[in-house]
């Protein structure tokens, strides 16, 4: 019974807290109870739902980003060093 009562009286998350927990949520780093509060808020708040979606896209896009290749001179110099080391 006490457990039941405590759970019923957990304060609901507000948007300001939600936003601060987004990365921990995406990392799977929220403790169980915190995660449930997070998801309960998510289910009823369009603003936060959109925010989470945006953060997912930022992370997804960063994962996909390809960085520029090094310039030919750098590449050539490194390949020479690679060769020298083999031969030397």
């Amino acid at each position, binding site marked *: 019974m006490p457990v039941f009562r405590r759970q019923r009286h957990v304060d609901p998350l*507000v*948007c*300001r*807290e939600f*936003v*601060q927990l*987004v*990365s*921990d949520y995406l*990392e799977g*780093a929220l403790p169980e109870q915190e995660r449930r509060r997070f998801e309960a808020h998510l289910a009823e*708040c*369009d*603003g*936060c739902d*959109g*925010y989470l*979606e*945006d*953060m997912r*896209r*930022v*992370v*997804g*896009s*960063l*994962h*996909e*980003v390809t*960085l*520029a*290749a*090094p310039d030919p001179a*750098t*590449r050539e110099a*490194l*390949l020479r*060093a*690679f*060769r020298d*080391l*083999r031969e030397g």
Partner: protein
Amino acid sequence: MAVDDDEDLLIRLRAGDEEAFEEFVVDHDSALRRVARTFVRTPSAADEVVQETWLAVLRGLSGFEARSSLRTWVFRILVNRARTAATREARQVPFSTLDADDPSVFEPGFGRDGRWISAPARLDGDPERQLLSGELRQHLLDAVENLPPGQRVVITLRDIVGLDADEVCKLLEITDGNQRVLLHRARARVRAALVPQVERHR
């Protein structure tokens, strides 16, 4: 990179496979440069650190014991060299201090009750679209570039290079909590920086 790929790559590198080495360089050089830049002041100092790193990698290949992934090993060499270079420059890199001077990066649009005053501006209407087309890709990278150093190095290693949280904590000698705060602030700032850009591209 999976362990098997790593083993395969290591065998090829040790056998002197130039194509494998070139691929390895192409995959990592740019990220190494970005990480180096969070430690040292100038691009030329960063170039020097990266150059030293690659040479140390070449020299170390035969003795590499695969206790970590190849990639983590390369970044560890880089971070060590970059730290040394930063000490020479007498530059303090505040990775362990949470970029304490960073004012709250969280959305300003909350009322006194902690709720959104109005729904936050969104990145785009089409959630399937990545943010990588043309100019937006540049804005994404610029947004990362403009972060304070601790946030920049963490988001680069985590989200661009793809190291896991544990590896990043060890590399940068920061706690897990520290790492998560830096990562979160970085992502929130990048998102906030992109919103007006996406609006413009609509």
